[in-house]
C-alpha cells in the first residue's frame, strides 16, 4: 500500500509542477478548464474528499482550482465526534452507568472514528459513534530528500450528538513529533482548530522512528480525558532488511538488529473518571483538580475485556464487534499479547492518562530499547536496560522487547499495573483495570503477524 501511495504522491507533485507552469502561462485567465486540473494521474488517486469539486463539465473558481492543486488525498481520515462505550456496570452513583447511555453502552466519550476512504459527507453517518481509544495508526519514516514522501491525515469535525451546544473545534496533535511547523502541530492557540462540518489535512514527514501518541489539543484537559487520544508509531527505514533480523522488522534504525522483533503490540494507557464523563453528558463541568479516576484502561478497555479479541473495521468504516460482545463495538482494540516460543515481542507502551503508571510483566524480562521515540543509545554507548517493571508518566512512551521463552504448552504471563489500587474496576474487589496477559505458545503455533496487535486463533 505504501509503495502505491508514494507513486501516487509523486504523480500529484509532478502535476503540481506542471500545473504551476500552466497557471503561469494562463496568467490573467479568470477560469481554467477543468481538464487541465483533473488529469488521469489525479483521478487515479483516492476519492477527492470535497464533493463541491464534482461535476466534470463545470468550470472551477480560482479558489477551487487552487484547492484541487494543493489538496492531496488522505492516507488516514479521522472524524472527531462523541459516542458511547462499555465499561463494567459497577454502580458509581450517579455517574456510572450513565443513565443517558443507549444500550448496550454505559459511558460517554469524545473521540475519533476511522473513516478512511469516506468523504466528509459520508463520514457524517458516524456522528455520535466515536471509537475508543483513538484509532491506532503507523507511518513509515520518510526520505527527507524526497519532498513527495509524506503522510496525509485528514481530520473532519462531525460535531457532537449528545452535546449539540458544544461547538468546540478539534485538532490532531502528533505528540513528540520532532520539528513540525505549528500549522501541522494541532495546537489550536498557535494556529487553528477545525470547526464543525469542516476538514483539515495535516502533513507529516516523520524522520524519527519510535512510539508516539496523538490527541486533540483543543480544550485538551477535557478532550483528552474524554477519549480523543491514541497511539501512533513510526517505522524505521531499516525495515525490510532481513540480514540483521530474520523478520526484517525493527523498532529503530539500530544498525545491528538489536531492536528486531517478530510481533508488536501497542498499548495506550488511559483513565476514566466517571464523574467527568457523566458531567459532560449531563451538560455540566467537573472540577479537574478533584481528578480521581474509577477505571484505568489499556487500549480503552479494562480487564478481563482487555483479553477479548480485536473487533473488525469494515471497508465502509462500520465496526463489527468481537464475537458475542456487541457492547465492545466501539472499543475494537484488544490488548492480548501472543507469541510463539523463541519469538521477540515488541511492546509499544504509551501513557495519555494523567497519572504516572508502572507496568510489571511477571515472569519475563522487558528489554527497554527506546523511550520517547529515542533509541537508548548515545553514539556507541548502549543505555538500554532490562527490567520487569516499566514506569511511564503522562505523555511518555516506552519500547520494550520481550523474548518469548521456550514453552511446550500455552503459558500465560500477566502484565499489570503495579499500583494495585488500579488493578480493579471502579473500586470493586477482584482483578480488573490495567491488566492484560502475554500468551506464549509452542514454536510454530501462530502464523506470522502482518500488522500490529494482530491476533490468531491458536
Amino acid at each position: 500500500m505504501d509503495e502505491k501511495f508514494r507513486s501516487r504522491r509523486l504523480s500529484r507533485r509532478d502535476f503540481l509542477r506542471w500545473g504551476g507552469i500552466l497557471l503561469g502561462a494562463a496568467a490573467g485567465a479568470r477560469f481554467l478548464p477543468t481538464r487541465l486540473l483533473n488529469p488521469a494521474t489525479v483521478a487515479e488517486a483516492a476519492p477527492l474528499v470535497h464533493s463541491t469539486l464534482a461535476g466534470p463539465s463545470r468550470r472551477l473558481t480560482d479558489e477551487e482550482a487552487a484547492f484541487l492543486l494543493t489538496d492531496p488525498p488522505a492516507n488516514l481520515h479521522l472524524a472527531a465526534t462523541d459516542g458511547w462505550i462499555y465499561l463494567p456496570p459497577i454502580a458509581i452513583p450517579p455517574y456510572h452507568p450513565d443513565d443517558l447511555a443507549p444500550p448496550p453502552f454505559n459511558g460517554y466519550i469524545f473521540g475519533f472514528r476511522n473513516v478512511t476512504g469516506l468523504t466528509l459527507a459520508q463520514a457524517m453517518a458516524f456522528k455520535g459513534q466515536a471509537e475508543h481509544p483513538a484509532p491506532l495508526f503507523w507511518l513509515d519514516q520518510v526520505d527527507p530528500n524526497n519532498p513527495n514522501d509524506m503522510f496525509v491525515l485528514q481530520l473532519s469535525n462531525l460535531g457532537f450528538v449528545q452535546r449539540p451546544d458544544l461547538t468546540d473545534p478539534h485538532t490532531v496533535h502528533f505528540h513528540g513529533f520532532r520539528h513540525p511547523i505549528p500549522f501541522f502541530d494541532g495546537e489550536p492557540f498557535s494556529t487553528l482548530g477545525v470547526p464543525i462540518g469542516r476538514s483539515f489535512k495535516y502533513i507529516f514527514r516523520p524522520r524519527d522512528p519510535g512510539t508516539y501518541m496523538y490527541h486533540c489539543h483543543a480544550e485538551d484537559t477535557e478532550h483528552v480525558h474524554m477519549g480523543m487520544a491514541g497511539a501512533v508509531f513510526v517505522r524505521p527505514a531499516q525495515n525490510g532488511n532481513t540480514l540483521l533480523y530474520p523478520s526484517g522488522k525493527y523498532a529503530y534504525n539500530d544498525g545491528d538488529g538489536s531492536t528486531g522483533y517478530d510481533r508488536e503490540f501497542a498499548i495506550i494507557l488511559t483513565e476514566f473518571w466517571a464523574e467527568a464523563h457523566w458531567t459532560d453528558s449531563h451538560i455540566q463541568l467537573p472540577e479537574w483538580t478533584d481528578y480521581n479516576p474509577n477505571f484505568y484502561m489499556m487500549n480503552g478497555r479494562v480487564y478481563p475485556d482487555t483479553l477479548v479479541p480485536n473487533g473488525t473495521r469494515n471497508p465502509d468504516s462500520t465496526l463489527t464487534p468481537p464475537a458475542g460482545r456487541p457492547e465492545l463495538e466501539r472499543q475494537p482494540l484488544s490488548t492480548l499479547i501472543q507469541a510463539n516460543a523463541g519469538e521477540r515481542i515488541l511492546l509499544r507502551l504509551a501513557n495519555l492518562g494523567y497519572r504516572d503508571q508502572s507496568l510489571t510483566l511477571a515472569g519475563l524480562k522487558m528489554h527497554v530499547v527506546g523511550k520517547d521515540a529515542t533509541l537508548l543509545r548515545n553514539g556507541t554507548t548502549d543505555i538500554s536496560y532490562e527490567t520487569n517493571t516499566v514506569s511511564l508518566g503522562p505523555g511518555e512512551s516506552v519500547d520494550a522487547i520481550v523474548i518469548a521463552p521456550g514453552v511446550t504448552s500455552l503459558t500465560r504471563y500477566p502484565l499489570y499495573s503495579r499500583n494495585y489500587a488500579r488493578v480493579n474496576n471502579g473500586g470493586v474487589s477482584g482483578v480488573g483495570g490495567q491488566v492484560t496477559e502475554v500468551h506464549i505458545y509452542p514454536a510454530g503455533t501462530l502464523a506470522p503477524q502482518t500488522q500490529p496487535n494482530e491476533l490468531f486463533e491458536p
Partner: protein
Amino acid sequence: MTTRLRQALYGLLMLALLVGIGPASGTPVAVAQTARSSGIVCTTNPSATFTLTTRTGYINLPDGNTLYMWGYSEGNKPFQHPGPVLCVNEGDTVTIVLHNTLPEDVSIIFPGQSNVLANGAPAQPQFDAGGHLVSLTNVAAKNNGSVTYSFVADQPGTYLYMSGTNPQIQVQMGLFGALVVRPAMGANYAYNRAETEFNPDFEYIVLLSEIDPLLHLAVEAGQTYDVTQYRARYFMINGRSFPDTIAPNYASWVPNQPYSALVRIRPRDPVDNPLPALVRYLGVGPEIYPFHPHGNNGEIIARDGRVLAGPAAEDTSFEKFSIPVGPGQTWDALVWWEDRDHYDPVLNPVPVTPPNEQNAAFGPWYSGSPYLGRQEALPPGTITYNQCGEYYFMAHNHNLAQLVAWGVVNSGQITWTRIDPPLPNTCP
C-alpha cells in the same frame, strides 16, 4: 528608606550597570540583570555573598484570585515569588545571610551542595529536647533572627534552595528558589563538557510548583492546617500561571512575580544560530510534573546538577519528549528547533490550502500564515498577539488535569516556546 526611594535608587543602580559603570567599590551589592524580557534573571554578586530576607506578600492568579505567600527576597527588596535566581561560579565560596522576619523559625537547605556551614560550623539537622527532628538544618530564629550559610560551589549545575523548617507549610508558602552554578569552562556551558555548550542569549528557568489555596488562607489567618487534606488548585511555572507565564520579566500586572517563563529562540542554523538553548527544569511541588515541550524533544544533559556521563566519561545524554520533573529534582535540557521542511510560500508551499475563515477556528497567537516570518490578514475581529510572523509551540505539564486555575481551564503550567524568524527580523 521608603519603598519608593529604594526602588528609585535601585533603578539608578540598574541604569549604571546597563551603561557599564558597574557597582562602586566597597561593600559588594547583589544585582539582577533586567536586559531581556524573558529568560533567566540572575541575581549575582562579585563575592557570591547574598542576603535573603523572608517577606510576606500576595501573588496574582489568572482567575482573578490573589493569595498570601511567604518568600525570600534579596537584601531589603520587597516580597517576590519565587525567591531570586542565585547565579554563582564553580569554585565560589557562596555566603548566604538569612534574615527572618516571620513569626516562626525559618532555614534554607541547599540540596546537591556538600559541606554546608551554618555560622561557620557544619550545618546540622535540629532536634528538640526529646530528640525529635524539628528542622533539616540550622534556623534563623523567628522575629528577626539570622543565620549565615556558606559552602563551596564545587559542582556546576542547576539546584534548588528552599526552607528546611516546617517545610510542608513553608515550601508550600513560597520559601524556595533556584541556584545556578556556572562551570569553569564558562557561562556558555552548562557543565564542564564541550557538548553542553549553549547560546547564552537563550537560557531559561522552568521552575514548577503548585498551590493549595486553603493552606494559604489558613496561614494568613494564623490557623493550623491539616496537610493530609492538601489538594493543589493552582499550578505554576516560575511562580506564575498561564497566561501570566508568558508575560515579560517584571511585568507590571504581576508585580510580585518577576520571572517570565517564555522560552524564546530562533531556528537552529549551522551558520547563524548553531548553538541550542538551555532550559533548566526544577521541581518544587510534591509530585512529578511530566513536562512536554512541543516542537522538539529536549536533549537531557544532566539531572540534579550532575552531567549525564558514563564511567569512562562517555556521553550518556538522551532525548525526551515528556520530562518527568520530580519533587526536588532538576533536569537540564538543550532545546532547539530546525526548519526541517523548508516550507516557503513560493518555492515550497505547504501541500494543503490554508483554510479561510469559514473553515477554521484561528487561535490568538496565529500569524495568519503557515510560514515563519510571514503575517497574513486574519478575519475581522480576530485577536492576534503575533508580532512578526513568529511561531509558537506550547510547552506544558502533560498531567492535563493540572492545566487549570481552580476551575478555569487552559491555565496552570503552560508556557510557549516562541520561535522568532531568522535574523534580520522585525520582531520587537
